[in-house]
């Protein structure tokens, strides 16, 4: 039985672990801290600008998509949709035409697949919006959303204050609201209060912060629409993001069902001098509560993420290091050139990462394979500008699928 260790439990690592376990490998998923998914909008961005199949030849040769190939990306998305299907979250979308969805500040973002609760039904897409401001919930900005949506050509009827029976006597987080609504009785009270508040409002679409439940959110969304009598569209909020948490939960359960051993907590490091050795990694070191423990492995999938997720670390002296094996990081120029002038500009640091070959092995500047049983996936892959391209989850899923295909045939 092939022993596969996946390091990192964001979207890419979790999906790689599930797919590898489904193909019969003995899979251990090692993760230090949560993050990737908990800060995510829960959608699948593949390519913002048209059909990836047609665009691919014009994408720069160092881009991860050129290594993964469009077939693997399509198959990966199919596999993802199959894995999340039983959850009832109802992912909708198309590989070729992105959806346009409102953000937490009322701008529009493009994504290829989104949970049903975030997608307004096309047949009702022309309905004017009503923005719901939930009592006591400060991490949502209805006035700003309204102004920006109008600027983007949306018809916005107004903002409605929604009462919150059972309001906690302290700051309310999105997770508090989601959990409150997960409780059958509280959900009934809250939704009925909203129904009374909205009675007679007319044919409108209700925009709400994404707080409609955690554990069975698909069902709760349908229930809320039925009770209130309006289509409801959720907007992901400030972190922690409920759509991301819902997806993480679904993937954890799928990983357990597939037989993945989940090890949460330890920092993973490499055996000493692995980069100077035989070009293989025989075991990983895990910094557990009792200090270092060794985990022998046949193959390793490195899914630790990019510079915002712990896979890369920027040092004071201007170097950027890969945190597990010390793999070379490409795209890092002078310290002064890491960031763009404005925060919302394309950021050069977004492109930092590890270079790989078509089997996703890490390679050096000359393209030589560095570690033959290590495969790099997800945010750690360099050469992509995930935000402006809208390619983050496409890279995550496509590379996860490709790595498993390479390791297990």
């Amino acid at each position, binding site marked *: 039985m092939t022993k596969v260790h996946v390091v990192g439990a964001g979207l890419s690592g979790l999906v790689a672990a599930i797919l590898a376990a489904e193909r019969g490998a003995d899979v*251990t998923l090692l993760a*230090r*801290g*949560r*993050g990737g998914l*908990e*800060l995510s909008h829960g959608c699948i961005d593949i390519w913002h600008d048209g059909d990836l199949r047609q665009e691919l030849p014009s994408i720069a040769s160092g881009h991860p998509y050129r290594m993964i190939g469009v077939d693997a990306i399509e198959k990966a998305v199919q596999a993802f949709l199959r894995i999340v299907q039983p959850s009832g979250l109802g992912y909708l979308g198309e590989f070729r035409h992105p959806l346009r969805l409102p953000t937490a500040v009322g701008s529009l973002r493009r994504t290829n697949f989104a949970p049903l609760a975030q997608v307004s039904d096309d047949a009702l897409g022309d309905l004017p919006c009503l923005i719901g401001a939930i009592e006591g919930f400060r991490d949502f900005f209805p006035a700003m959303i309204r102004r920006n949506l109008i600027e983007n050509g949306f018809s916005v009827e107004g903002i409605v204050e929604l009462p919150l029976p059972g309001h*906690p*006597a*302290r*700051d309310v*987080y*999105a*997770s*508090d609201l989601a*959990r409150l609504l997960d409780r059958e009785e509280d959900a009934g009270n809250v939704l009925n209060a909203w129904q009374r508040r909205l009675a007679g409002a007319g044919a409108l679409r209700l925009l709400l912060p994404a707080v409609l439940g955690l554990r069975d959110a698909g069902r709760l969304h349908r229930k809320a629409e039925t009770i209130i009598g309006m289509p409801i569209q959720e907007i992901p909020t400030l*972190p*922690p993001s409920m759509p991301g*948490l819902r997806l993480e939960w679904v993937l954890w*359960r799928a990983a*357990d069902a597939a*037989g993945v*051993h*989940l*090890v*949460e*907590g*330890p920092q993973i490091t490499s055996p000493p001098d692995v980069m100077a050795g035989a070009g293989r990694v025989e075991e990983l070191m*895990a*910094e*557990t*509560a*009792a*200090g*270092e*423990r060794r985990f022998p492995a046949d193959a390793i999938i490195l899914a630790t993420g990019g510079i915002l*997720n*712990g896979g890369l670390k920027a040092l004071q002296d201007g170097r950027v290091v890969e945190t597990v094996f010390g793999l070379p990081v490409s795209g890092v120029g002078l310290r002064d050139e890491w960031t763009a002038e404005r925060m919302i500009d394309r950021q050069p640091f977004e492109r930092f990462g590890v270079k790989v070959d078509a089997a996703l092995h890490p390679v050096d500047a000359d393209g030589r394979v560095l570690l033959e049983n290590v495969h790099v996936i997800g945010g750690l892959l360099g050469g992509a500008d995930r935000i402006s391209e809208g390619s983050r989850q496409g890279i995550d899923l496509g590379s996860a699928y490709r790595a498993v295909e390479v390791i297990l045939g």
Partner: protein
Amino acid sequence: MMTRPGFTSDQCLKCNICTAACPVAAVTDLFPGPKAVGPQAERFRHPELPMPDESVSYCSGCGTCTRVCPHGVAVAETNIQAKARLVEEKHAPLRDQFLSRPDLLGMFLSPVAPLANVMLNATSVRWVLDKTIGISPGAALPPFTRVSLRKREAARCMKQPPDPKPGKRRVAYFHGCSTNYYEPELGQQAIAVLERLGCQVILPPQVCCGLPLQSNGLFDAAREKGRKNVSGLLPFAEQGIPIVGTSSSCMLELKHEYHAVLGLEGDDLAIVSHLCYDMFEFLLLELNDALRHVHLTPINASALYHPPCQLRNHGVGMPALGILRRIPGLNVQLSDAMCCGVAGTYGAKSEKYDIARAVGKGLFDQLKASGVDFVISDTETCRWWIEKHTGLRVVHPIEVLAGAMGLGEFRVKSGGY
């Protein structure tokens, strides 16, 4: 030098991932959440001024926050130290002093076990304990046993490691107070499993690990336990003998908390803590080959495995789950709950009891819906608490494994919903 947990607060990005994961903040307004009472409040705690706020006392100490933090903030460690400062300022109530000393209770009450057990289960006595010192009538107080594990296994109790028997691997068994005074059969089964897998099992000198004292903010007394254990275990660790325990909370105390929370230092501690293993971690890492060659007889039943928070905080995953799933006929499902609620002595306290029950509700509901025959969990306080609130039989994974290995009779069912 140890990094003071409070200093890691500077790494906090306020992402609230810990707040979303916290089982206590999820059910009560009284606790503002780990980020708020941890890295955020730490800025307002001057070393020489009184503590400005007491809401940290509602932290159950489950440690989930530290485990989920993506930025290395020692949230739980910061919070337990803040709790200890509150205790220093206000002094621990008699109740906490009492709950913190399972070793003394065991020593004095074991010899009179039948009487003590009747007394502690009497409604009137529980009413008085609730009204006078604040031990909840719903708290699970396990029955004492008359003959402790150390008395039963006196021949194995040694201060120095014996010479190894030919072909055997020496293992020092850290049983903890609960196995010694309440559940000696569990300890005997653990010994039997280790022996069947080729080990020579010794009971080294040991006292209470100190976790109950630490959780109740009684750090000086906890450090004293820590020093005693380190010196008792050192002769074994110096010969490279692994120290294996069946209580995942005691083992976390030895592995990690002595240093990270109580601030104990030194090479002796480092040698001892690195050789500490949770029982199933040890089976998986060190005895897996032997275990794979052992015949496991079927247990035709369904069970739910609930990994205790303390076990999760070992950073070794859920080693028992994979091993239990090898037993033919046994269908083991994983708990969906982050925590059972009791968190050691937290759920025993009258003012915390309702919170602890609310935390556990998710698990109790899952158990009710699943219709499993029994429950499996690695820490004693979780087991007693889940049993008290569901009526289901709750066992340590070693009891199930010992049953499958033919080393003891394993009863599948008793009572339940």
